[in-house]
């Protein structure tokens, strides 16, 4: 038991998970004395999330010094490697900023205690998903993440659009989950074990394993928004509160991808197959996300569609790495995972700040933020406008921002493989990055128009708690563009771990 209590991985996961009921209880208890359950719940959430950085630091040091760390709690097996630490870093980082940000964004709404409780539970579940060592637990973490995120998507339960998005999300996720469970059952029947590393040794490549792999791709693919399983995403990501949109686009879909990679890795003997499959899906994702985003006038929906395209970039990088057995592609994909979390998180938070400033979330005035609303934002909110532009230009992959560095690494990895297919795909990705300017630039253009829109002129001031997360993310987007080595300690072990997963 001591080994469990001393283990930093356990603490990193347990703090948000234990904090979830605590936050809800604190909020409910507080309402007996004062109105509004948001403040105490947010305090608990922030304390838990900030506290989780301490075991995170220990985990990072341990990983760098000693390599992977495993722990067994009863039947639950956990294993910390580069990939799980990277996912934990993005989830915790974005989660902390979103918790800070949501105070003002949710001002005056009902059920805030539940919001923070679910946010904590979702972050804890994602860390668990990243470090699950056996198939069944991995499925459980995956479900826990889905359920908590479902409640968050439908947070504005009084709004029809929000409920519709929630239902779509729930039904499609459930369909995906069933397929995953089927896959799990097939694997168990074939190999007689659930432990991911044992499956690889136990099972010889067989048709049943291949089928279960297909089920996993589709099941997890629903959550990871692999085209054509992405149809729920624009509704869910656009209707959720902006902080949650940031989490969903920035971490949750990526967490599903990590889960998919973990289970595929266990199905040994098909490494190349999965590489080719992911590459094809990645290329389709890049293109379709772009095409869908091109005609959008609603800002959050546009950002949601662009997430599909960026998932494609991440997939391409990882698939290049798996197919050509090279570190740089896998590292590029994982680097883009971090960058996309930062940039898309920043874009959603900035859009949310604008929704708050223009009062679009207020009862009776509820309507989506559109591109014409952005007109002349820079005149009234120069910092916000700059941060939003940095995010959007970073997503477009303009140097010297973070997005350029990771996209460039992915494309360079494709070209360096000297395989004509991969070079072609890298070129395709580059052209798509160019096409994406077609919807990113109008956003920047609108923000820097000289005449502010009427909505902007009548906007209200932004509170500091909203500005701090936006500034932090904006600085990160610039800093990672100039010094990509800053995340080297996260990306390099993760890239190595990813390749090690697929022998």
């Amino acid at each position: 038991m001591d080994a469990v209590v001393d283990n930093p991985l356990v603490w990193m996961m347990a703090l948000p998970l234990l904090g979830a009921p605590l936050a809800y209880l604190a909020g409910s208890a507080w309402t007996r004395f004062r109105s509004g359950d948001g403040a105490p719940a947010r305090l608990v959430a922030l304390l838990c999330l900030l506290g989780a950085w301490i075991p995170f630091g220990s985990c990072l040091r341990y990983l760098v010094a000693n390599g992977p760390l495993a722990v067994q709690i009863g039947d639950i097996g956990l294993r910390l490697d580069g990939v799980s630490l990277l996912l934990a870093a993005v989830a915790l980082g974005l989660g902390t900023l979103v918790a800070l940000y949501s105070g003002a964004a949710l001002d005056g709404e009902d059920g805030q205690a539940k919001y923070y409780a679910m946010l904590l539970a979702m972050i804890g579940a994602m860390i668990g998903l990243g470090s699950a060592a056996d198939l069944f637990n991995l499925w459980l973490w995956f479900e826990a993440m889905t359920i908590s995120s479902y409640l968050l998507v439908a947070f504005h339960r009084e709004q029809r659009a929000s409920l519709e998005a929630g239902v779509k999300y729930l039904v499609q996720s459930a369909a995906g989950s069933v397929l995953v469970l089927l896959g799990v059952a097939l694997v168990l029947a074939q190999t007689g074990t659930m432990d991911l590393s044992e499956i690889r040794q136990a099972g010889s490549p067989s048709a049943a394993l291949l089928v279960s792999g297909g089920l996993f791709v589709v099941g997890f693919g629903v959550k990871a928004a692999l085209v054509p399983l992405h149809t729920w995403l624009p509704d869910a990501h656009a209707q959720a509160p902006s902080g949650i949109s940031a989490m969903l686009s920035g971490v949750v879909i990526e967490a599903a991808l990590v889960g998919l990679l973990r289970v595929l890795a266990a199905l040994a003997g098909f490494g190349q197959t999965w590489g080719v499959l992911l590459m094809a899906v990645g290329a389709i994702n890049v293109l379709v996300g772009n095409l869908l985003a091109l005609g959008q006038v609603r800002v959050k929906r546009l950002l949601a569609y662009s997430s599909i395209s960026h998932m494609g970039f991440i997939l391409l990088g990882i698939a290049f790495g798996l197919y050509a057995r090279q570190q740089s592609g896998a590292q590029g994909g994982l680097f883009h995972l971090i960058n996309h979390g930062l940039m898309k998180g920043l874009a959603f938070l900035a859009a949310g700040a604008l929704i708050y400033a223009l009062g679009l979330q207020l009862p009776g005035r509820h309507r989506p933020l559109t591109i014409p609303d952005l007109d002349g934002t820079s005149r009234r909110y120069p910092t916000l406008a700059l941060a939003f532009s940095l995010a959007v230009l970073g997503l477009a992959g303009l140097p010297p921002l973070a997005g350029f560095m990771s996209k460039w690494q992915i494309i360079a990895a494709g070209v360096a493989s000297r395989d004509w297919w991969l070079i072609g795909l890298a070129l395709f990705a580059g052209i798509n990055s160019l096409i994406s300017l077609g919807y990113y630039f109008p956003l920047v253009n609108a923000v820097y128009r000289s005449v502010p829109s009427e909505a902007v002129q009548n906007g209200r001031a932004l509170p500091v708690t909203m500005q701090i997360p936006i500034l932090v993310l904006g600085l990160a987007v610039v800093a990672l563009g100039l010094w990509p080595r800053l995340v080297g300690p996260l990306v390099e072990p993760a890239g190595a771990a990813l390749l090690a997963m697929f022998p």
Partner: protein
Amino acid sequence: MFSLVLLVLLFPLMGLSINLVFGRRLGDPGAGILASLSAGLAFVVSLVLLAALRLEPQGAVIPLATWIQIGTLDIPWALQVDTLSLTMMLVVSGVGAVIHFYAIAYMRGDPGFVRFFIYLNLFLFAMLVLVSASNYAMLFVGWEGVGLCSYLLIGFWFDRGEQGIGNASAARKAFVVNRIGDLGFLLALFLMFWTFGSLNFADISPLAEEKLALGAPLAVGITTALLVAAIGKSAQIPLFVWLPDAMAGPTPVSALIHAATMVTAGVYLIARSQFLFDLAPLTQMVTAGIGAVTALMAAAAAAGQFDIKRVLAYSTISQLGFMMTAVGLGAYAAGIFHLTTHAFFKALLFLAAGSVVHALQHNHGAHMAHRDFDPQDMRGMGGLHRRMPVTFWVYLIGALALAGLPPLSGFFSKDEILLAAFVDQKALFAILLAAAFLTSFYMARQIWLVFFGPAKSPAAAAARESPAGLAVPLVILAALAVVGGGLNLPGSHAFSHWLERTLEHLNPPSFDLYVALLATLLALAGITLASVLYRRALRAGQADPLERILGRMFGLLGRGWGLDDIYAALIIRPYGRLTARLADLDLGALTFLEGLPVGLIRLLSAGSRLTQTGQLNWNVAGIVFGVIAILLVLVWMQ
């Protein structure tokens, strides 16, 4: 001790940084005083270095940092202190400080006062980088830096001039023409790195003789590329067209950049590359030839100008031609000597001309009747020698020094060049003699038109002597123009021996009485001829007797031999036609071609939006189809 050279660079940099931040608060004249002070301090440090170099004449290279290190290419940021670079530093910072000081009074009340001094200090910094560089790459940085400052300062009054863009286009012209020279410089850099694997003077100097034979094609190639660079920067045929237009800048700029320092960078470059040019007699001959012909043609063009500053501009081109001839003939000491004295008397002439323009302009403010009055047109001057005595006397000193009358500085330096040509190339000697004759002629013409005869405009009639802030620098420069020749008196040749520490086998030719006498007599003849012509013409109230004597030739001279027209006919107009054609092509066919992919993407986008129906049943069915599809694919792939 030699590390003090860092301060020479640092002072102008500090001046410009402080002005950049606090300039608006320092204001007028605070910012100007600060800038002048930084230039003056740079000069004082140069003087200390001079004392140090007298004790240790071999000098030193002061490494500061590694700049570029790629493969075998290793370019340090290092400063060179030797007799050649220090001479240039002294001229640049010394004359520069005087001109800075003059500019405080000259630019008084200009709305861009602070900006002007920031640019001026930036120029000084770039020029000092150029002359203190220990390798060609650093030299190129300074070279481009002074080019940039020249552009910024020519266009300083960018909203003035013909149709409000005249000055801006003059600045652009200077910049574009200089690019041609810069291309030469870049080519030389590549060739040198390819040949020697290094760009440091200290590395190339011994390697040159080792790797290249006398007259080797590569030596000719490198030196020709360097010569192209020098022709651009030092305004020689056929690239001199930018310098007359550069007079659009404020007069202190013309004095500092376009007379005393920057335009001499080409001469410095060739002197600095002696180890290469000595191996390429062909290039040397071309250099000397271009220099001599430029000297003659520009001197003739100067006689056809009516703008007081354009006369001086063509005179500068002509004198630069003298210097180029000198370095082309291998008489490096004579070239650098003439560069130094020319800095004195030409800066003096420009500043004195500025004093005249300043007086006319400020009087013109009171007489707004003549809206299109040009204060630089000599046809609106006259009779100023009584009303502006100080300016007249210093102008006369400058003019006589330029004409090369003994014992003024110009006599000694020009005589050395003439002598070198006399010993080496008799034909060049004859050309240079003719140029010297024309020099004294056009200067005498200018003196007559500006200072004698009746006042030809109300502004000239009411002109008053300029304030002390303008007069004091004039007197300092006049003194230098008088005694500057003492640097390298025949017999002692102190300057040549000083430069011999850096340059090789200079062997100053001994003074030749007959050459000196001939040159002096020709100069006097020029003055006499001009005086006879213009005395009579001014008395008769005629405009310009040359116009009558030369006829259409005079107009050609006024247009600088029509070189601009040739460029317009050969390059600018055909290029304009070509771009118009290409624009048509772009708007027609290419726009259509661009439209194709854009239309395709639009179509695809609209099509894919159709799939986003929002129908949940359809979506879930899609998931099931997805399972089937993926299984089929997996089966197919195995």
